[in-house]
């Protein structure tokens, strides 16, 4: 380790050991990249995302309370409905007397159950394809959720729910003689199309299953947004950072901690995910336009070129902004960018500057390219020298010049 890096770690440690964290100084330090060592990044992200208060003496209480709250969510939203489902399935009387699968009442538990399944299936499709070129999410977690995995409990887990719901649509096949084959669930799940992403044996679970649970709980608690594609790409880097924390005390609680940090982050960026807000003042469209208007001020030639080629910001900036660039770069680079993003007081204005900087840094290529070449550059961004730092530096310049 270089001495500069050692100094940097020492600087962070000194700031973080103060009883009352100086947020301004911490932000400045974090902006230039947070060390991974000793779990410093996890800690800083938790502070920057307002999960941990500035008063250090409160941390233990806050963490304990929030982790209990999360366990409570799991019980209420996954375990109890799972138990109820098993009961429904077994006891016929309950089914006919109180509630049944065809009950048209919107308050019906079955109705809720089927609606939840739709959301769950959508989440399931996406978390299985989270960072596919990176094995981490396929690996088993060291801390499977004991509450959920309890072998004593005979209830329907999310995993069983997904399996059942996917099977439901393929159980009945009729052959030519009119015989209806109801294939056994066992047989079908053996030839599951899910391939590499088959769940691990009972008692262990992969990291992607943890992410699935976080998103499901979020969807249940925020029915107005529920789940929108791309949220998985926001949870991913946070969960990865927390679940690889060298500080194992905290690593064990990566799931609950990720949930709350994700929720706090979503509070700031959720408008991007809401379709009905697209054309409102706070929606994604106005942000995309801001990227272009900033570009126009900073590099009019490039702006005019993109205009002339009819390359609209929707073609690329929609994804850049909605996903906080998480699909544009490899995970370590995404995390490095997020250090700066989270550290900035006006963090999502800063994201607009980063986007603008990304355009300016490849201006020569863009000025030469035709529509096709440029679309390819923007959808598959060629990181100059494989380093994100010049982008952040340029973005900071842009931001400072506007003050």
């Amino acid at each position: 380790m270089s001495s500069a890096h050692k100094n940097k770690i020492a600087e962070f440690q000194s700031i973080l050991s103060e009883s009352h964290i100086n947020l301004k100084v911490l932000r400045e330090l974090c902006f230039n990249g947070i060390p991974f060592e000793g779990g410093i990044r996890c800690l800083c992200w938790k502070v920057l995302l307002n999960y941990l208060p500035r008063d250090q003496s409160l941390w233990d209480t806050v963490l304990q309370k929030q982790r209990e709250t999360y366990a409570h969510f799991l019980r209420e939203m996954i375990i109890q409905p799972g138990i109820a489902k098993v009961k429904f399935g077994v006891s016929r009387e309950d089914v006919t007397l109180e509630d049944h699968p065809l009950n048209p009442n919107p308050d019906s538990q079955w109705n809720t159950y089927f609606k939840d399944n739709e959301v769950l299936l959508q989440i399931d499709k996406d978390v299985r394809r989270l960072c596919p070129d990176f094995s981490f999410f396929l690996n088993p977690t060291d801390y499977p959720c004991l509450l959920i995995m309890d072998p004593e409990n005979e209830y329907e887990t999310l995993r069983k729910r997904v399996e059942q719901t996917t099977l439901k649509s393929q159980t009945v096949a009729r052959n030519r003689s009119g015989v209806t084959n109801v294939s056994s669930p066992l047989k079908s799940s053996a030839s599951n199309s899910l391939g590499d992403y088959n769940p691990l044996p009972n008692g262990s679970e992969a990291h992607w299953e943890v992410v699935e649970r976080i998103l499901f709980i979020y969807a249940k608690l925020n029915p107005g947004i529920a789940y929108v594609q791309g949220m998985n790409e926001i949870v991913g880097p946070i969960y990865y950072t927390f679940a690889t924390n060298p500080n194992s005390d905290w690593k064990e609680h990566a799931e609950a901690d990720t949930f709350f940090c994700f929720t706090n982050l979503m509070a700031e960026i959720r408008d991007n995910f809401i379709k009905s807000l697209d054309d409102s003042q706070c929606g994604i469209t106005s942000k995309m336009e801001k990227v272009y208007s900033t570009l126009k001020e900073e590099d009019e030639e490039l702006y005019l070129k993109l205009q002339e080629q009819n390359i609209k910001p929707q073609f690329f900036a929609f994804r850049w902004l909605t996903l906080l660039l998480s699909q544009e770069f490899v995970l370590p680079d995404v995390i490095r960018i997020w250090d700066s993003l989270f550290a900035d007081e006006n963090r999502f204005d800063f994201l607009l500057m980063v986007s603008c900087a990304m355009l300016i840094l490849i201006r020569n290529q863009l000025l030469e390219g035709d529509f096709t070449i440029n679309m390819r550059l923007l959808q598959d961004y060629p990181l100059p020298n494989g380093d994100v730092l010049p982008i952040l530096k340029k973005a900071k310049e842009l931001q400072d010049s506007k003050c």
Partner: protein
Amino acid sequence: MAKKTYDLLFKLLLIGDSGVGKTCVLFRFSDDAFNTTFISTIGIDFKIKTVELQGKKIKLQIWDTAGQERFHTITTSYYRGAMGIMLVYDITNAKSFENISKWLRNIDEHANEDVERMLLGNKCDMEDKRVVPKAKGEQIAREHGIRFFETSAKANVNIEKAFLTLAEDILRKTPVKEPNSENVDISSGGGVTGWKSKCC
């Protein structure tokens, strides 16, 4: 000005529920490869492939869209410019088939009237998981007067054929004119007028 390496440019659009394999269909066509592990498409993606039909070099500009409802305001803005739309469902997913009528309505509302439409039932390699019979796909295609193929991006079934057929159908409707026709005097009987730089 960059030299044009094609005679015609066709803009195509892929739509359909999320997870039916739109990105895989496109990837098979553009790169002749299959990848099971695609991240979900957010907003819109884009590929180019140049094909040759009836002696003409045709550049296909193909837009791949996100399937989820949330992205419709973003994606429907691409319908207008599209000359061909491929509507994809998954033969192992009944819901994606039920939604066909919804997608067709979207086309009616947002696309040009004369847009060429095509229906694809993807994942036809997964016969043991099939829930949508081929006949049902054929029927709905017939009802709407559009072409239909069952495809498999994985096993490379009918992918190229589907794209080429769609391109041919568009080509058939494209008014026959020489690339430099704006400089041709009709009375000259279509005589060759020498090379001029083509216009977009």
